[in-house]
């Protein structure tokens, strides 16, 4: 019974990082590719919808990773290679949580264009530039997120050596 429970927890753990990392790769390699052939107005709609959904999935996955990771944790031997890898993995997890919070509460909201009919052409131009800078920030942040996620997979593989 205990083995079955451990296996189920391990399965949830694997699914959580698979969905997190796989989702990030799909957003980078599949969605970006499709965006190149879409109209800019449609790109904005799709990115907003997809980004919003993926954020919720990321949140769920990071929470499950923490819970199942703690449940599956073996006794720590201070200074052992496994402990060092676990500490680094925990730090990467924390960094990913911070990135998710940054994207959710600052970067994505900044990407919404705020144009009103009373604005002058100059003001509209400045607003578009502001959104353009927010998009560049988002691009850099999600690529850092992807790099960290891939690094976490490498660390996870190291734990099974």
């Amino acid at each position, binding site marked *: 019974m205990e*083995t079955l429970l*451990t*296996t*189920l927890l*391990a*399965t949830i*753990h*694997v*699914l959580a*990082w*698979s*969905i*997190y*990392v*796989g*989702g*990030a*790769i*799909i*957003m980078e*390699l*599949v*969605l970006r*590719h*499709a965006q190149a*052939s*879409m*109209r800019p107005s*449609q790109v904005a*709609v*799709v*990115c907003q*919808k*997809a980004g919003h*959904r*993926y954020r919720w*999935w990321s949140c769920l996955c990071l929470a499950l990773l923490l819970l199942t990771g703690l449940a599956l944790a073996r006794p720590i031997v201070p200074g052992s290679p496994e402990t060092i890898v676990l500490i680094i993995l925990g730090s990467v997890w924390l960094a990913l949580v911070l990135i998710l919070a940054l994207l959710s509460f600052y970067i994505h909201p900044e990407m919404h264009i705020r144009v009103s009919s009373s604005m002058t052409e100059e003001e509209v131009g400045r607003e578009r530039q502001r959104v353009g800078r927010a998009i560049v920030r988002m691009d850099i942040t999600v690529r850092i997120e992807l790099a960290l996620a*891939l690094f976490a*997979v*490498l660390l*996870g*593989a*190291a734990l*099974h*050596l």
Partner: protein
Amino acid sequence: MTGYDWIVLTLGFVHDLSVAVYVGGAVAMEFVLAPAQASIPPAQAQIMGEKTSNRFLVLVWSSLALILITGVLRLQMNGMLNSDGLSMADSYGRTLWTMFFLWVVLAINGGLITFIFRPTLQGKLQPGSNQALVTRDRDAKMKAATWIQHLTRADLVLAIIVTLLGASLSRGGLF
């Protein structure tokens, strides 16, 4: 770390990444991109659907190939690629063979989608086709789209089962 350790680490990393691309990619396509696609006009949604599906199929086939290759190599490096490691008499062997069987099913489903149903969906009518041909073509496309939907959902369920089996291997197998 020795050279052997680096090889084992690399194989583990590539294997895990391929699993993530397959399983996580399937979830993202179904629950993130598909709903986003539904929020734009049908003509644009079709273009987006074609582009995302084409790219995702490349990732899927790459993942399936790498999962098999790295899986076999890892077994060999652990000394399990022999009659003892692959024996159906113990739980580890039975679990491993079940995983391989499910991999074959996933590959067959992928083949059906790639070589039969998607070409049907992408097929174009000849100019001047009569009404009967147009109706037949439309019906064939709808059936192909339905089959693709069913197969991709079945693949997602199977992939989750394979993940469960894989997670059980370090504990000696599932059954």
